[in-house]
Structure formats: structure tokens, C-alpha cells
């Protein structure tokens, strides 16, 4: 009987050392690249109208700037990748003698991430120009007062080219692309 107990305790000892096994499950998770850009609170038209002087000899009155529009962005990028936003006049022709200036504010809002650097006093043309560069992984928050505030203003570049009632509609296109 003593031999039986000895064997029993030897088995128990071995059991306490070896008594575990393992199994493994794998988890794969994809975080995709994402690039979303829109205008808030909407993309309705804004109006910038020069006002005629009421007194002979006075200059035209340049309208107040308009800063009612915001750019919202969601950007998810791989390591080492940054993005930029460009702006250009994609349809319509700016009346002769005028410049359309755009200032893009630094980011503000409820988002988080790497928001890059915004430009100011860009004279918009039909060629794409960088208005924000160095955007990384970021989200601005949704809606007005989130993201990059856009300020449009008119500038008279040449009085001699101005024509009465030369109104026109322009479309400004913003594009988010990888650098």
C-alpha cells in the first residue's frame, strides 16, 4: 500500500507541473484608408457684390468678406502618408479686373488628429492650389464651426477692366488628395 501512495503522489507532482495546454485563435483587423471632405453647413451659393458709389469721384465699395462656409475632413492614412486640400475655380469666369481671394483658417472644432497647415489670401484661379497641406490621420468634427473656416473676399486688381453689371457664377472645387 505504501508503494501505491508513493506512486500516487509522484503522479500528482508530475500533474501539477505539466497540467496545462494551450490553444490559439487569430484576430485580423483592417483599418482602411479613408478620405472624406465636404462643405458645411451646405454648399449653397454665396454672393459677393461690388457696390456702386453714391458720390462722384469715390471708388466702388468692396463687399464684406464671407466666412460662412467650413470644410469638414475625415482622413485616415497609412504611416508616412499625408494629404492636402486644393481649391480651384472649376466653372465660370471671374470678371475682368477682380481677384477672388480665399483664406483658410487654421483648424478649430471638436475633432482630433493631425490637421496640417492652412494657407491664406490665395487668389483663386482655374489651377488647383494647395489650401491645406500636411493632413494626417484626423477628423474635424461634423458641421459648421468644425474644421477649416473659408473666407472669400473680392479684390479689385484693375479698375480699368471693370465692367458694369458683369456678374457671373463661379464654382469652387475643393479636393482632398494624397501628397
Amino acid at each position: 500500500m505504501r508503494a501505491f501512495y508513493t506512486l500516487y503522489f509522484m503522479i500528482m507532482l508530475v500533474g501539477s507541473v505539466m497540467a496545462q495546454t494551450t490553444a490559439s485563435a487569430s484576430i485580423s483587423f483592417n483599418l482602411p484608408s479613408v478620405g472624406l471632405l465636404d462643405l458645411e453647413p451646405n454648399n449653397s451659393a454665396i454672393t459677393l457684390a461690388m457696390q456702386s458709389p453714391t458720390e462722384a469721384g469715390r471708388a466702388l465699395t468692396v463687399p464684406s468678406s464671407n466666412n460662412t462656409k467650413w470644410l469638414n475632413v475625415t482622413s485616415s492614412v497609412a504611416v508616412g502618408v499625408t494629404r492636402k486640400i486644393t481649391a480651384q475655380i472649376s466653372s465660370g469666369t471671374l470678371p475682368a479686373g477682380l481677384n477672388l481671394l480665399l483664406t483658410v483658417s487654421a483648424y478649430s472644432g471638436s475633432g482630433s488628429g493631425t490637421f496640417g497647415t492652412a494657407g491664406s489670401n490665395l487668389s483663386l484661379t482655374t489651377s488647383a492650389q494647395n489650401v491645406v497641406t500636411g493632413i494626417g490621420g484626423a477628423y474635424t468634427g461634423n458641421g459648421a464651426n468644425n474644421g477649416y473656416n473659408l473666407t472669400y473676399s473680392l479684390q479689385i486688381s484693375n479698375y480699368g477692366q471693370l465692367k458694369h453689371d458683369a456678374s457671373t457664377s463661379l464654382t469652387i472645387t475643393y479636393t482632398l488628395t494624397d501628397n
Partner: protein
Amino acid sequence: MKRIIGLFCFLLSGASVSGQSNAISITGTSWSASAPTLTEAGNNYSSNVTSASNQTLVTVSSTAFLGLLLSWKVMVTKQDVSWNSNLTVWIRKTGDGTSLLGSITPSGTSSYIQLSTTQQELFRGTNVLTSLNRNNVPIQYEIRGLSVTIPAANYSANVIYTLIDL
């Protein structure tokens, strides 16, 4: 009489000739998931990604040569292959599986625990009599902390289930 008591103790111990009283096996060894689609500029991810409630099924088999009460516990840990520390993986059992006579604790759906590189107990139980296994305990995973500020990439990790005899 001593022989009978000794044999009874031997049976209760669940000790086996190999020293291993129980073994663990799983089905559903791979879970692939992706972040939900974002549709509105300015927004971040707002939800977690959750697997099926029975993504993995865990079975604890009693392999003892002889045994009456075979107690064990299942520990879990995460082994990163390529992972971002801002993404956290959570795990829970969502049911008890099936067993004749055995017990399992906690019962039913448990609370999520966050997986880490340190072993944590997921559940424990007792199998009554050799060959009466605890079968197909359903396991669910959840990934939290999604953000577009985390680099876009494919991430992978392993969940290690370790069975410890008690």
C-alpha cells in the same frame, strides 16, 4: 478499507498517467474584421467592432485515465503580431456550452475583460467523470478604440487560451 479510500482519492484527483487531466481545444480559430464604413466627413468611428457571439467555441476535454472531479480554469492572453496599442481587444463568454453534470463559472454571459499580455481567467469549471467534457463554450470578441487617427493598416494578434488543471 485503506485501499478503497486510496482509490477514491485517486479518482477524485483526476490524475492521469501522463500528468495531464484536461485538454483544451477550440473551433473558430480565426476572426477577420474591418472598421465600419464612414460616410460623413468630419466624423470619427463611433462604434466598436464585435464578433459573432459564438466566434470561438472552447471545449475542455477530460483526458485523465481515471477521474471523478476534474477542475480546471481557462486563462487568456493576447499575443501581438502587428497591433496598435490604441486598439483594445475585449473578450467574454456568452454561454455555458454543454456538459453532463459539470459546472462552469461564471455562468451565462460574462462581462468583457480586456485582453493583455498578462494571463487572465476567462472562466473555470469542473468536469464530472472522465469523458464528460465541457463542450463548445461560446466566446465573443470586441475591438474598441477605433479612430481615424490610428494609422490605416492590417493589424493582427493571437488570443492564447491556456487550460490549467486545478
